[in-house]
């Protein structure tokens, strides 16, 4: 039997995609625990690489910590640094490839403990690299030991009675500290505990990469992140703890925004 064919131009699209997985993420499953916001941080960086259309020109330097396999997750060229040394390796990569966009992705144990010298001096030299600093106030990968960023009183496997200032000193505020160094052009702290803050974090990551594209200097975004597994919480409880314990101690804000970055998305109005 004959069929009645309607003309194509009468067909309207019924829907449009308003969100999809960024193409700068590889099509693989990550090893991160359920609800770990390392995944969120990865997604945001990948979305920014997509939006700025710099994926083909970007080189990642992975660090040691739970994000050690990040080179398998970002669809960019990458190399793996020894624990804490990512900013030093990124310095070399950027200096021999000044046209490339080079970023490190580091945890708080990596960046604020064993790698303190590397991060401080990369910032002091004003290396034109971008640092994504994921602060979850613990050593996640090795089983939940105290980090330099663990809160006072925080129970970890190496501070079972809670962090004691007499014994372990006070937690370090890295975003504020790095903002003091002259080579830093952008140093801010954001949080990943809810949708609104995740969107703000993305804008900051974008500005940090723009600082490098414009060849201005060292840029760093500190992201308050969760570790449900080692905090002994459900993923949603962990986000509440980020909001109620981490954010009050590590205030969100812009600690240094070079005037050439003012007015960008993510910079103060």
């Amino acid at each position, binding site marked *: *039997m*004959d069929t*009645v064919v*309607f*003309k194509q131009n*009468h067909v*309207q*699209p*019924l*829907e*449009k*995609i*308003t*969100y*999809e*997985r*960024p193409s700068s*993420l590889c099509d693989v*499953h*990550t090893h*991160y*625990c*359920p*609800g*770990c*916001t*390392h*995944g*969120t941080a990865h*997604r945001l960086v990948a979305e920014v690489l997509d939006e700025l259309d710099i994926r083909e020109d970007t080189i990642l330097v992975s660090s040691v910590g739970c994000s050690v396999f990040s080179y398998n997750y970002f669809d960019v060229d990458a190399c793996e640094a020894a624990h804490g040394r990512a900013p030093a390796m990124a310095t070399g990569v950027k200096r021999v490839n000044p046209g490339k966009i080079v970023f490190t992705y580091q945890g708080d144990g990596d960046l604020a403990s064993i790698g303190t010298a590397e991060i401080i001096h990369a910032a002091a030299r004003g290396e034109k690299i971008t640092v994504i600093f994921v602060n979850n106030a613990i050593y996640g990968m090795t089983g939940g030991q105290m980090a330099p960023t663990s809160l006072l009183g925080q129970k970890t496997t190496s501070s079972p009675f809670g962090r004691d200032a007499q014994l372990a000193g006070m937690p370090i505020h890295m975003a504020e500290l790095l903002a003091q160094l002259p080579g830093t052009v952008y140093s801010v702290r954001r949080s990943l505990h*809810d*949708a609104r803050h*995740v*969107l703000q974090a993305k804008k900051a990551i974008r500005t940090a990469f723009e600082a490098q594209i414009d060849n201005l200097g060292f840029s760093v975004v500190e992201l308050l992140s969760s570790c449900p597994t080692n905090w002994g919480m*459900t*993923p*949603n409880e962990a*986000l509440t703890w980020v909001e109620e314990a981490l954010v009050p101690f590590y205030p969100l804000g812009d600690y240094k925004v070079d005037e050439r970055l003012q007015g960008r998305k993510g910079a103060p109005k």
Partner: protein
Amino acid sequence: MATGRIVIDAERCKGCELCRPACPQSVIQLAESLNTKGYRPAMLVDPLHSCTGCALCAVVCPDGCITVYRDLPQKQTSLPKYEMKETLAHVEAVA
């Protein structure tokens, strides 16, 4: 109010439930069945079509499992008259 839907990659999902409280319309639940990784994946349960396509669930998903669609407003169009006549004639002819 805009309407939409989400598609969750059930194999990628880790059942972390971060998307559930993030959804203002409360239309995400965990499946009773397990995926290959052994997690109960999130799924859209939206009998009244109250999903707005706001994408807040996708913004908080750490594993990038969620694709969000928004329904487009449909223009009311009718076939041009002469075509309608032809079409009717055609339908009659083949019937």
